[in-house]
């Protein structure tokens, strides 16, 4: 397939990304004698409905990284996360898991991936416990190791285990989906706005969970509108999708 490596695309909407600023300095400096990145992307270009969201984006995410994707509404944060998770295909470029293109090792990649999108994936016709149990089982947890009651207690849903999800609130739906984080063996967590509809206490608990996860050699990629409070500035790597740079046709 013919592909011009030069920048040959014009960003379409001026209110949108004119460039992508990848805060890549810490990542690159670490790379010298580090093992290959856990998850990486090369030359990602994303076009949605004839709008260029980002272009020639290259990312490397190592074990122990927490990466925050920033940018205004409509700048392509969700699109980037979906591409990284393998839900969407980029217009150009590819995503690599352990240096293998994810298209060639879908099942292995998904064994090590936990993606939570805007939608909680909770069925109203099933109870909180059933929802959690199904999702855990589908993602490869063995039946014996699942203690759904204890996990639901972690996200403050004690007492709601057997109520149908359709009787629960949006925040509680989100908690059901977040409960999977406590049982997850996946190394790569990709979380799209995990803090929406979660109270302050919950946010704090989640941040502690992220800390434990990266300490164990996992990585977290997330979007959020609020800052991560318990992490220091240096700890959080940032990918900024915004329009602070001029477009390249000038």
């Amino acid at each position: 397939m013919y592909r011009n490596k030069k920048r040959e695309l014009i960003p379409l909407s001026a209110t949108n990304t004119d460039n992508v600023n990848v805060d890549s300095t810490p990542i690159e400096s670490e790379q010298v004698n580090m093992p290959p990145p856990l998850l990486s992307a090369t030359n990602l270009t994303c076009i949605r409905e004839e709008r260029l969201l980002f272009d020639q984006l290259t990312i490397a995410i190592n074990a122990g990284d927490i990466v925050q994707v920033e940018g205004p509404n409509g700048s392509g944060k969700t699109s980037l996360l979906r591409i990284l998770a393998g839900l969407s295909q980029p217009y150009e470029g590819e995503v690599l898991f352990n240096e293998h293109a994810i298209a060639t090792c879908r099942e292995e990649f998904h064994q090590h991936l936990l993606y939570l999108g805007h939608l909680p994936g909770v069925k109203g016709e099933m109870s909180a416990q059933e929802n959690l149990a199904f999702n855990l089982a589908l993602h490869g947890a063995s039946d014996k190791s699942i203690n759904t009651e204890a996990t639901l207690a972690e996200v403050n849903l004690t007492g709601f285990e057997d109520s149908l999800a359709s009787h629960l609130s949006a925040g509680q739906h989100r908690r059901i989906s977040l409960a999977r984080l406590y049982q997850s063996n996946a190394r790569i967590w990709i979380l799209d706005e995990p803090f929406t509809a979660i109270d302050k206490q919950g946010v704090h608990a989640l941040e502690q969970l992220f800390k434990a996860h990266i300490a164990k050699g996992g990585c977290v990629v997330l979007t959020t509108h609020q800052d991560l409070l318990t992490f220091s500035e240096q700890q959080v790597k940032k990918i900024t999708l915004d329009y602070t740079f001029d477009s390249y046709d000038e």
Partner: protein
Amino acid sequence: MWKWLHPYANPEVSYHFAGRMLPWLSALAALFLSIGIVWALAFAPADYQQGDSFRIFYLHVPAASLSMGIYLGMAIAAFTSMVWQFKLADASAAAMAPVGAVFTAIALFTGAAWGKPMWGTWWIWDARLTSELILLFLYLGVIALHSAFEDKNLAGKAAGILTLVGVINLPIIKYSVEWWNTLHQGSTISKLGKPSMTADMLWPFLFCFIGFILLVTLVICIRFRSEVLSRNSIRPWVRTLVSTQLAATEK
């Protein structure tokens, strides 16, 4: 062959290539079609059984075989795009669908107008007619799917899946209707393949057929160019092209 094809896989090159073809195609199509149609209407002999209604043949048969040929082309394009992620194939499949639909409609209509005097009815639920009608439905489905998606890339992929499912289904449909309604009673009377015709009947047919093929290629080229432009609207070459063309028309 891949080496030779390589530059044409670039949208800009293929856009201009299709553009250079346009005048040749239109001149040749006009030439062949005008010769073929005049010959068919006024000079070709009438059939011994069907009389002058036989002249519909010169319209009906090319349209019918093109309607299937275009679908085949569309299916090949869909397959290429699916296997090799070849984006231009989607554009050409999108360009083919409406052309195929029009020619299917022509085949159906002329078939009906021919059937009325010959069979005694505009429409019978005969194998060929029914499978051609289903072909029209498949074309319409593909077109509808193309326009239902906002994102042209996704539209191309979705329509490609439907095209391929349809191509598996076409022989089944054809066979099922043949079985279901056995007016075409076996090969004892129907002639398989090669129409045995005298030369003075065959020549105008060949002219018409080639003329229609050229015409179809012409229209597909025009539509292909539009598809390439709208799919690549954020590329600099499209922008410069559009502004120069607009400046030319304003003068």
